[in-house]
Each structure stands twice: as structure tokens, then as C-alpha cells.
């Protein structure tokens, strides 16, 4: 869908749980309109926070295990991780400024 790093069920622990940097995962799917609402903002934020926060995407269509692991049943869902733990969950399409505010708290 984009230039963003796509995480999978296989590499989730390596890329997110064991990441040195705080991380955010944008759970999306092709058939989800509001997910497309959020993606441009997420891509911009990825550039802005490059090197400070790892911003990634996960296609829930091809990756069924991770959403179940975190109890995700609605998309778009943005999950923010620090030290391998979930520190914030943002559900539904939100404007970029709201997401930015939450990312700032991670630093």
C-alpha cells in the first residue's frame, strides 16, 4: 500500500516487541475505507519521526495471528509500543494532529 515498513506475523516480535525504538503499528486492510483515510497521515508521520519512532503497517488480511494476539477486531487501529508493551491504542480514523500528539508522548 505504501513505502511504510510492513510487519508480519512472522517478524512482529523482532521488529516491534524487541525494537530499541518506540514503535507504532497501523493495522489496515485493502477493503477498509477509513484505513485509507489514515494512511497518508501515517506515512507523513513516519518521515517526520524517522530514526526516533518506528512507524509500520500490518495488513490484517495476510496476517491473522497478530490481531488476535492483541484483541483487535476493528480497523483502522493504531497501536503504540514502548519496551515491547502496548502503551496506547487508537481506534478509528483520527486526524493527523491527534496521532501526532500520542506519538510525542512516546518520546
Amino acid at each position, binding site marked *: 500500500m505504501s513505502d511504510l515498513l510492513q510487519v508480519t506475523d512472522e517478524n512482529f516480535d523482532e521488529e516491534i516487541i524487541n525494537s530499541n525504538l518506540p514503535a507504532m503499528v497501523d493495522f489496515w486492510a485493502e477493503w477498509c475505507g*477509513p*484505513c*485509507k483515510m*489514515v494512511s497518508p497521515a501515517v506515512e507523513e508521520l513516519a518521515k517526520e519521526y524517522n530514526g526516533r519512532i518506528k512507524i509500520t503497517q500490518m495488513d490484517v488480511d495476510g496476517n491473522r495471528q497478530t490481531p488476535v494476539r492483541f*484483541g483487535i*477486531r476493528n480497523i483502522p487501529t493504531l497501536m503504540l509500543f514502548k519496551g515491547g508493551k502496548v502503551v496506547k491504542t487508537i481506534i478509528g480514523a483520527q*486526524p493527523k*494532529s491527534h496521532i501526532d500528539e500520542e506519538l510525542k508522548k512516546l518520546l
Partner: protein
Amino acid sequence: MEDLIIIGAGPAGLTAGLYAARSRLRTILFERLTLGGQILTTDFVENYPGFPEGISGFELADRMKLQAEKFGLEIQNQEVVRLEFFPKKNIVVTDKQNLESKTVILACGATPQKLGIEGEDLLIGKGISYCATCDGPFYTNQEVAVIGGGDMAVEEALFLTRFASKVHLVHRRDKLRATKLLQERALTKEQIKIIWDTIPTRIVGKNGVEGIELKSVKTDKVSLLPVRGVFIFIGYNPNSALVKGHMELDKLGFVLTNNDMETSVPGVFAAGDIRSKLLRQVSTAVGEGAMAAFAAEKFLER
């Protein structure tokens, strides 16, 4: 100073922008998420004239955007956070800048109404949804409940039958409000079971939705329907917080306008779902967007 600022890039705002661009008004259209508005949440638009095969909400919105940009419309991805209205100008404050404009069109649309029952806020993201196209696939081969009786509820219930093993459509009356064609489809679909004269009173579940408590409005009898997902389509709330207290709204908060889309503030117009009106559709939003832009142009010529 701009000639016109349009707030919201759903069908109403995009059409207003198209007309304003062609009229060579100095216009900016602000959108805080992405273009398209509520049609992005629907799988398929079947009743917008000109598309006998139907069209996806996303594609329709994209086409509207391309058309407006072709004529030079400027669209900026910013959230309008404050509005101040004065006789000769309007101040529009976004999350990035302060601007002034001679006219404003409010095309901010509406957001889904919540049930306001216990468990709803707690279980958001964990089985409570207001968007079937987003979340339907999570319920493959499971049973879900849909709350509502209008077009949206029935359409989305039909959409959900692609995934769910059974869709329980819960409606508080003994007759659906939806378009007759949609009713026909729902009543003949095996997977849809309609529960009449019933309201939801509580959504239950610990780490996710496990069921929904229902109460008959006729007998007061309470029962628990075990479902893993609850989809709520009971109506819309206008996105009119920006103008509350600044102009006349109806008792539900929708913006009151005359036939020319004029609000109670001179130079400020409204189009689309945010307006107080009988029918909220893409087709009406588009017509109102065009009218509002034209009315704004006439206002500027005065």
C-alpha cells in the same frame, strides 16, 4: 483574504469546490482526514445516478477529487479548529494557520450515532463497530448483531452476510424504515434473522464482545444474544461543534438553512449531511454543494 473556504471534502465539499474553482473564486478546501467522507465506509454506492453498475465509495470520491483539481481547486489536509464570524469577514483557524475569508461553506458532514448503552465505550475496538466494510471480515463464520432499521442498517446487514454465518438485525419497531428494495433483499436472505420490537440494553464481554442484552419493547422480556460483533447503524450526529452557538441549529444540532443553503450567518452556507433536512445521500450532498458554491458567488458579487 480568500473568497471562499470550504470545510470538509466529502461529496458536498468536493462539489462546492468544483463549482467554485470553475467560477474562479479564490478557494481553499480543508479536510482533516482524507477526501470522501462517509462514502469511504460503504462498500458500494448503487443509487448515485450515472453508474448503473454501481461504484465503490472510494472510487467515486477519488473521481470527484480529480475533477475538482482539474479546474484548479486547492485542497489542504488540515483540521479547522475554530471559526469566528464577522459582518465583513470570517476567521478560519486550522491546526496550522489562521486565515480570513469572505464566505464559508460548511460541509463537515456527520458521524455515526452511538447507542449510549453500557459496555459500548468499553468494548470499542473489541467487537463494537460502526463500519461493516472495515470490520466485517473479522467475523467470518461467526454470528453478529446489527442494530437499526434504516437503509444503512439493512445495507450493512446484507453486506455482512458475505462473512458472518448469521446476522441478527435488531430493530425497535415492527417495520423497517429502509428503502423497499433493501427490505425485500433482507427479508429473503436466509442468513438474516430480524428481531422485531426489540432494543439493546447492554453489551457484555470481558476482553471482547461476547453478547448483547436485548429487551422487548412490547413484553419487557430480557434475553441475551450471544454474538461476537455488534454493528451499530442507528443514525447520525452532525459535525457542527465548530458552529454551535454561532448560528441556528435544529434541536438535533443540524445546521438550519434556507433553500439557497444560506445559514443564519450572512456569507456562511452549509451543504450535505450537516444540514437539517429530510434526506441524506450522496446525490443530495452533491446538489447542495453546487448550490452553496453558487450562492457564495452571488454573495461575493453583491
